């Protein structure tokens, strides 16, 4: 039965001939050195699969890019693991491609008749670096935004069509929505097609010329080479996931902020260029763009210099050039990293940006990211509008040692606060620093009530705030104490009448605070004693309302609650 199905299929598909290729002895034998090209392809498949998974959640627009990556990183099941594998997988591809190049060069694999294969390999390495350039900006965080900005600026300033090229790629005159869609299309559609074509051509060349002989006996691909391939692939995958976890995944910085003095740094494989650019002053632009072209040009020309076997001196010259170049690249990179590590100011900035990133991601997770994009996440915390107004309009008088008015802090209009106000209205935390009030003949005296009477008065005023835990019995007891006692000389509980001290109707409620904010000098509020600006004309109704809501919230807030509201933007 199995044989019949096999026959049927083979007549149509011809799979037996394809499978038989693995059984044929391969000249050159099996070797771990030959696993590198398989590993390269394997890692590219990992990149394709993880990339497709990320594409299920990613949205390329200025409003959504950072938000969707933060969502993947912080909320999607296994999202941060897949992102980590995707990012560091590309680093692994670069390492494997580099190793493959070195191993090939060591054995003179660029010589006749493999020149075209050598060039295709160089082309693949070039394409691989373009993945990281195009992928980095998709995060739309500070790191990717600024690194890409600088990279494009170098292309822009290059002679020839650099400027036009940058405008076509970034989609116009500025970074914006089209920048993200263009880079996304390049990264996820165009480059994979180019990679597939190059890889297909490379493989066709490899089949035509066979593997480089190792000196061992001819072996069938299966199992001799295949088992080696999969052992290496499995080890590489384990190492990749382990490294990614160790490195904290792909990481995500705060949302791209065009005002931030961010220390833009490239991916590690561009670090040699970055180091050289910063070392050689006037040759900067030439180094940034010219040096990669020169390196690729020299590598491409190697087969013409050392084109046939039997000339060891030429081979040694090629190898010497390669290793000196590699050692130099590693050397200047390490020097550049060490320089950054020693820069205290840079480290301080880095820590500040890391704190800001953590805050942005927490806010994104808690409140979601508003439509305008990642930066707007900083305006989503509770009472953001009120706290911003507080900083610009209120803090100078109501906070700190230089204040000129009562402290408006946590516990405002709570029982304890009202009691302390009644006991000593001229204490510095109350009206003590408000000159116009304490120095007036009508300044409020300390209450003479004590014990249960004081409790009842406190409860009566506390009830005006709209709090839900009021004791009605105490309130009833407080009414005659207020109305028939000294309080009523200056205050009343009715609301609108003109009086010496503020009407206490709704004291500590939103309505009360809104009225004070609009015009604290109204006859039923502070009247002639008033020394605070009226905000009726300067603030929008929604701002006044936001401020009043915040002041009401203060009644039940603790100092820790207030601390948690404070923004921590890096300058």
């Amino acid at each position, binding site marked *: 039965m199995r044989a019949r199905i096999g026959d049927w299929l083979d007549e149509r598909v011809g799979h037996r001939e394809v499978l038989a290729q693995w059984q044929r002895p391969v000249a050159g034998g099996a070797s771990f050195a030959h696993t590198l090209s398989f590993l390269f392809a394997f890692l590219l498949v990992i990149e394709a699969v993880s990339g497709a998974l990320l594409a299920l959640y990613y949205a390329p*627009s*200025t*409003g959504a890019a950072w938000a969707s990556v933060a969502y993947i990183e912080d909320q999607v099941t296994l999202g941060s693991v897949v992102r980590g594998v995707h990012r560091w997988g590309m680093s692994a591809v670069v390492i494997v491609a580099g190793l493959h190049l070195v191993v090939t060069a060591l054995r003179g694999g660029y010589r006749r008749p493999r020149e075209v294969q050598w060039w295709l390999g160089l082309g693949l390495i070039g394409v691989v670096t373009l993945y990281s350039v195009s992928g980095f900006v998709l995060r739309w965080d500070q790191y990717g935004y*600024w690194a890409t*900005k*600088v990279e494009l*600026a*170098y292309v*822009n*300033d290059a002679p020839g069509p650099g400027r*036009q090229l940058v*405008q*076509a790629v*970034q*989609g*116009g*005159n*500025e*970074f*914006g*929505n*089209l920048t993200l869609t263009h880079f996304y299309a390049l990264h996820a559609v165009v480059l994979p097609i180019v990679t597939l074509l190059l890889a297909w051509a490379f493989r066709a060349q490899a089949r035509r010329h066979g593997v480089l002989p190792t000196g061992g006996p001819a072996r069938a691909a299966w199992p001799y080479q295949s088992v080696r391939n999969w052992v290496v692939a499995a080890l590489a995958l384990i190492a990749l996931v382990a490294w990614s976890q160790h490195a904290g995944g792909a990481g995500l910085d705060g949302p791209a*902020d*065009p*005002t*931030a*003095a*961010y*220390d*833009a740094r490239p991916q590690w494989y561009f670090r040699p260029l970055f180091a050289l*650019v*910063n070392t050689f*002053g006037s040759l*900067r632009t030439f180094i940034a763009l010219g040096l990669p072209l020169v390196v690729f040009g020299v590598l491409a020309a190697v087969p013409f210099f050392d084109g046939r076997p039997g000339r060891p001196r030429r081979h040694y010259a090629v190898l010497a050039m390669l290793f000196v170049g590699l050692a130099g690249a590693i050397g200047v990179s390490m020097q550049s990293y060490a320089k950054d590590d020693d820069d205290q*100011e*840079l480290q301080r*900035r880095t820590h500040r940006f890391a704190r800001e990133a953590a805050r942005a991601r927490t806010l994104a997770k808690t409140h979601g990211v508003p*439509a*305008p*994009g990642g*930066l*707007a996440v900083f305006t989503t915390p509770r009472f953001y509008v009120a706290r911003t107004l507080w900083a610009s309009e209120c803090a100078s008088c109501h906070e700190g040692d230089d204040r000129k008015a009562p402290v408006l802090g946590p516990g405002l209009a709570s029982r304890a606060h009202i009691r302390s106000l009644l006991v000593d209205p001229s204490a510095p935390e109350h009206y003590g620093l408000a000159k116009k009030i304490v120095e007036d003949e009508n300044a409020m005296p300390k209450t003479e009530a004590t014990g249960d009477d004081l409790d009842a008065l406190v409860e009566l005023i506390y009830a005006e705030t709209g709090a839900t835990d009021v004791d009605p019995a105490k309130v009833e007891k407080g009414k005659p104490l207020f109305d028939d006692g000294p309080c009523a000389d200056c205050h009343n509980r009715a609301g609108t009448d003109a009086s010496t001290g503020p009407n206490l109707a709704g004291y500590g409620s939103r309505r009360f605070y809104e009225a004070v904010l609009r015009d604290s000098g109204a006859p039923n509020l502070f009247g002639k004693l008033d020394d605070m600006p009226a905000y009726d004309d300067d603030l929008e109704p929604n701002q006044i309302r936001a401020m009043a809501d915040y002041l009401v919230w203060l009644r039940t807030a603790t100092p820790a609650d207030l601390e948690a509201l404070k923004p921590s933007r890096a*300058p």
Partner: protein
Amino acid sequence: MGGGVGAALLVPAARLVGHAVGRVVVSSPTDPIDAIAADQVGDLPVRVPLVAASVRDAYASTANVVLGAAWLRRGQDGQIAALSSVCPHKGCAIGFAEGAKRYECPCHSATFDLDGNRLSGPAERGLDPLPVVIERGRVKVTWVRYQNGGADRKPA
């Protein structure tokens, strides 16, 4: 024959790819942007983000978009001057070093004095000044983006 078909496919494709070249895809109103109260600007520079009321970005229109930042400072003559935070070298946003009292670019270490003149590093010109007007005690700044590089200032 194949060449003809290829050209028939390639030419429109190239034109579509080039659509954005030389085009103002991202734009915002060019009137001065309210930045800060004039009495809050002193001898030391303050960084103020410039927020456009609306930005047209290709297919989208978005309100309250941060375009960039201006460094504001009151000069010896008492006049408030604004410098663009965009480094004229490669476009990173510059910072201000309080100790050395100079502007420093975090990317390639270009430095500028308090007036924005070039001190050291790779920039070919000083920081770009931005137009400032004072209205009813508020500083308003006009956002202009200049091309990177070059000793001459050309709007991007």
